[in-house]
């Protein structure tokens, strides 16, 4: 097994999940609690990666992050590193590609909380923020958990976008699924089989644990 690829994959998944949780909590709260013009457009934009071929997103990201592009140039002048074919590059790609896997379950979790409970909290002296912490988050946590697990698991299994933006540089952008692809290209079916089996087991365990937790929260009330 390519342990460098395993480690890199976990690092990418952890960072992606952390960044998306930070963006997703306020974004999902905003989506679930407000009505505004163009909300449907915004929701469609968030959901776009669900239906878009990874190569399409990868293509645009590659063009946008290249050293001669504005974003790539800015990144390089700040950090001295290239964005395309780097860890930062595939992280950016992962974050964008996983937006729906985080925000949609978060928003569904928050929307499932009865708005009358939020009204009750606000009349009892709490601000919107404290109401979010004391009511929305504890009651909608199953959605948050689902979003986090889905994002992490989906990043672990990501392939097309990473390959398009990052290529296959060992230890930098060569994630587990990319390494499976490389193994098959090299006709090393045994190595590919080991990695593939590891991914199947991982995905199954993650989903089983998530469902068990969600079920427990449903019985708790």
């Amino acid at each position, binding site marked *: 097994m390519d342990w460098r690829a395993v480690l890199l994959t976990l690092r990418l998944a952890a960072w992606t999940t952390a960044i998306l949780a930070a963006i997703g909590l306020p974004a999902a709260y905003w989506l679930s609690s407000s009505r505004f013009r163009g909300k449907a457009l915004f929701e469609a934009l968030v959901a776009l990666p669900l239906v878009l071929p990874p190569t399409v997103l990868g293509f645009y990201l590659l063009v946008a992050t290249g050293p001669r592009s504005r974003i790539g140039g800015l990144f390089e002048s700040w950090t001295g590193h290239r964005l395309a074919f780097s860890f930062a590059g595939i992280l950016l790609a992962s974050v964008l590609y996983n937006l729906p896997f985080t925000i949609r379950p978060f928003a569904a979790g928050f929307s499932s909380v009865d708005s009358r409970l939020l*009204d009750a909290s606000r*009349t*009892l*002296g709490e601000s919107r923020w404290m109401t979010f912490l004391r009511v929305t988050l504890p009651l909608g946590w199953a959605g948050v958990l689902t979003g986090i697990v889905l994002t992490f698991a989906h990043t672990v299994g990501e392939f097309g976008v990473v390959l398009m933006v990052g290529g296959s540089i060992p230890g930098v952008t060569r994630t587990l699924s990319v390494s499976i692809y490389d193994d098959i290209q090299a006709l090393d079916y045994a190595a590919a089989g080991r990695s593939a089996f590891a991914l199947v087991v991982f995905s199954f365990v993650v989903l089983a644990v998530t469902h068990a937790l969600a079920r427990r929260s449903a019985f708790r009330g």
Partner: protein
Amino acid sequence: MSGLSARFDKRLSPAFRVSADLSVPADGFSVTVLFGPSGSGKTTILRCVAGLERPDAGRIAFGEETWFDAARRVDEAPGRRRIGFLPQDYSLFPHFTVAGNVGYGLRRLARSERRSRVSEILERFDLTALAGSHPGRISGGEQQRVALARALVVRPRLLLLDEPLSALDAPLRERLRPELRRALSGSGAPVLLVTHDRLDAISLADRVAVVDGGQILQMETVEEVFNRPSGLRVAEIVGVENVRPARVLSVENGLASLAIGAVRVTAVAPPGVAGDVFACIRAEEVALERGQGSPGSVRNRLPSRIVALEPAGATVRVRLDAGFPLTALVTRSACDELELRPGDALSALIKAPAIHLVPRE
């Protein structure tokens, strides 16, 4: 002035607009009821006062404080208005215990202060034994008491109640109605209460505001509104035209002997009735008879004098003085046959089951 004064507009749809103009005095306990059919806009009025909805125009003030002013772009958050709010289905937090729910609004207090305030109010509402239970595991009546305790423990300056009894089944509602007024009076704060139930309004209110089509049609004492509806629509909504304070003198064999002023009448007694009540009689249940007639099944035969006749379509509203003001509704043909004239003496007949007694604490 002290107390709540609110005058605002809110458009709910292109065709429906709520326009409220009301005041609630704040000198001690009193109950103002917003009464009207469902969909009349009364809950919207309550939610605007609470700050949960934002009017399009107008001003809401409490004493010297401005809570909302469209022109000056003032809109205080609900939490800063220091109100107590009882939502329609109580909305208890499912992830907190009864004690946790009651103490929810006291987060800023020191732990010991919070504890003593919570245990004090749990005691008052007879909830101490349930302190550790979750709201899903207690009865509807208990949930109502928890919600009330939660709203009162923050010592609100104004209490807002949205259909406080409608989530309960009918027998429980009957039982809790008088208890509710007693529980509210203990807080000393003025109350603004929304209901579509006529009996809620009669038994709980000091003042009634009749709401229909987003407008407050009439706002006066219970007796004024129910006995002298300001217009046809109010009369239709309130339904009862005779609501008189009475006193139960005795109950025997299921019949209550009452005094309405100096007049004795007999009514069917609801279980446990005693003391001060409202006697409610629909105008169409009052029959008129010339002379003494022969004794029949009718328990109440009240010597009356006609004060005024008010034709209304095919019917005539007969205003009587039966020792207390009484209104009868008869057909125009009956009115002609009996040759009713103002000043005439006759008998008003009311069956005992037609007198509905509403307990009044």
